[in-house]
């Protein structure tokens, strides 16, 4: 039966080609948009994993936290240790927006560096380092830095109507391996140096609380909120849930735009199939007269639609893959990749295209089975 389906599609090359192109465009959009959303998901997922079981304590509202809060948090029962981190934008004029944190400077205690991030060269920060930096892989690539090179950090503050900015160089002592997390875009310098340079003495952006062994981190987060004023604590699970919630929203917007494109492609399949079925009134009537069962005619018509969907899907995925490949190459040159075409996206894209084709072929197929064999008998 497949040969008949192929024969019928190749008979009308132009029409079949245009329909497949329509589907391919839709699936192309699904793959590219989906790839972007997948990449974000993966980045956040890996980033959260690196934070291990630590509870993230942020100011309740915006602003920064006073270092005295660290001592208060340490006193909360169940907290093994707590430490602050100061996050600032590497270039205040080009801070990332939305979900992309952009390149950032993180002031960290040398003994609290994320050691799960391996170094490809150099060393970690050690106590006593001042304007030394361990940088993420994207930063290294973007600014073409090696161990021993200097990197400029910038501080810009508003004072009245004008803003004063001053800069200084830090020396790269270590480069992290690529991790696919937001830490690839980080410049890690000692906390005290960061506080001094950014004129933010005794201030941190975030406090991480390590739960003592056997402590439930969600409960501990609540306890911290109750014991320490004006903070908002999130356990890793809570953090993951919050981020997923936000990402779902983002995914929804991008994917639904893409799905819309694909549905329009699907409608063109339906249109093509309806036209094709009404042109072939005689053919379907004849097949029935020859004793074709309803299911054979359904199979033929829906098969045509599904095949167009599938070919369109493959073409769309291939096109998306090629585009994303080149986009990633150009983005990687200036930092990190933006898209990840995961096997999941490929499978979803292909199934979506095929099922879409089939669904849009259902009504035309139903019409085809309704063709009276009498039509075939009627005179031309």
């Amino acid at each position, binding site marked *: 039966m497949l040969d008949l389906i192929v024969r019928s599609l190749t008979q009308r090359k132009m029409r079949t080609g245009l329909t497949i192109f329509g589907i391919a465009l839709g699936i192309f959009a699904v793959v590219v948009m989906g790839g972007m959303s997948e990449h974000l998901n993966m980045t956040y997922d890996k980033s959260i994993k690196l934070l291990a079981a630590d509870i993230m304590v942020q100011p309740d509202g915006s602003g920064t936290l006073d270092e005295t809060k660290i001592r208060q948090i340490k006193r909360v029962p169940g907290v093994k240790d707590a430490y602050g981190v100061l996050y600032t934008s590497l270039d205040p004029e080009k801070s990332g927006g939305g979900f992309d944190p952009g390149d950032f400077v993180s002031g960290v205690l040398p003994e609290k560096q994320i050691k799960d991030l391996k170094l490809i060269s150099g060393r970690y920060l050690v106590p006593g380092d001042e304007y030394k930096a361990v940088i993420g892989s994207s930063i290294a690539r973007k600014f073409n830095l090696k161990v021993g090179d200097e990197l400029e950090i910038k501080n810009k503050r508003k004072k009245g109507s004008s803003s004063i900015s001053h800069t200084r160089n830090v020396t790269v002592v270590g480069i992290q391996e690529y991790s696919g997390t937001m830490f690839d875009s980080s410049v890690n310098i000692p906390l005290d140096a960061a506080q001094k340079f950014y004129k933010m003495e005794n201030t941190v952006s975030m406090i991480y609380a390590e739960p003592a062994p056997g402590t439930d981190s969600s409960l501990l987060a609540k306890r911290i909120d109750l014991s320490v004023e004006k903070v908002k604590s999130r356990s890793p699970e809570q953090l993951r849930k919050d981020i997923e919630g936000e990402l779902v929203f983002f995914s929804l917007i991008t994917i639904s735009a893409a799905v819309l494109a694909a549905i329009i492609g699907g409608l063109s399949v339906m249109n093509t199939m309806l036209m094709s079925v009404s042109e072939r009134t005689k053919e379907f009537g004849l*097949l029935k007269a020859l*004793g074709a069962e309803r299911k054979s005619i359904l199979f033929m018509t829906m098969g045509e639609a599904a095949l167009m969907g599938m070919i369109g899907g493959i073409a769309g995925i291939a096109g998306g893959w090629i585009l994303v490949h080149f986009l990633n190459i150009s983005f990687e040159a200036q930092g990190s990749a933006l898209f990840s075409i995961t096997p999941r996206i490929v499978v979803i894209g292909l199934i979506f295209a095929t099922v879409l084709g089939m669904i849009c072929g259902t009504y035309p197929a139903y019409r085809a089975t309704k063709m009276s*064999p009498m039509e075939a008998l009627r*005179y031309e």
Partner: protein
Amino acid sequence: MSNNGNGKEPILSIRGLKKTYMQGRIPVHALDGVNLDVKKGELISIVGPSGSGKSTLLSMIGLLDRPTEGSVFIEGKEITDAKESEAPRIRREKIGFVFQHFNLLHTLTALENVDIAMRFSGVSRSKRKIRAFELLSSIGLGDRVNHRPSELSGGQQQRVAIARAMANNPAIILADEPTGAVDTKTREVIVSVLKELSRKGQTIIVVTHDMAVAEQTDRIITMRDGRIESDTGVDMK
């Protein structure tokens, strides 16, 4: 060559067949009590003016339409009470159709056009190929099997259609104006093919306007106003 009237069990029996259409609110009696027996191997022609009910009768026998009243038996089995789901199988096994305009699929070759009739019966690909080739060869198209309908003459196309009708060894071949779209010379070729098949035992019912065709058949049934007006088979008895 005539097998009728020799006491054999009829291959087709029609009893009290009626078909009434509603044209607006006026009932039209397309068939108004038709009784008919056909024996195996008979070549029958049904003639009559337009609207006399010939084509309606043919579509009742071919299970393409349902009667309002009455029964059709093929090989002793009533087909008029068959379920809709059984209709395709009955059409496949009992009936072969030949149409005025051939109705071949243009995208397929002559061989594939014959082959397609056997696909729905679940015949294996290799057997279909052999059978299709044999059928086409037997009606003189052995050298035309890979031609598409557009590359065949009208007469050749109709012979492909006849081979297709024969593919599943049907009890009856129903031919609706098989010579209506061809010239006189081709008509003779087609009629001789039908006569040859009938001689080999194939039952064939031909609906035609053309008396020159009807006169070459074993038995002529003349219809008027949904009834059988005359039947040479009965007259001969």
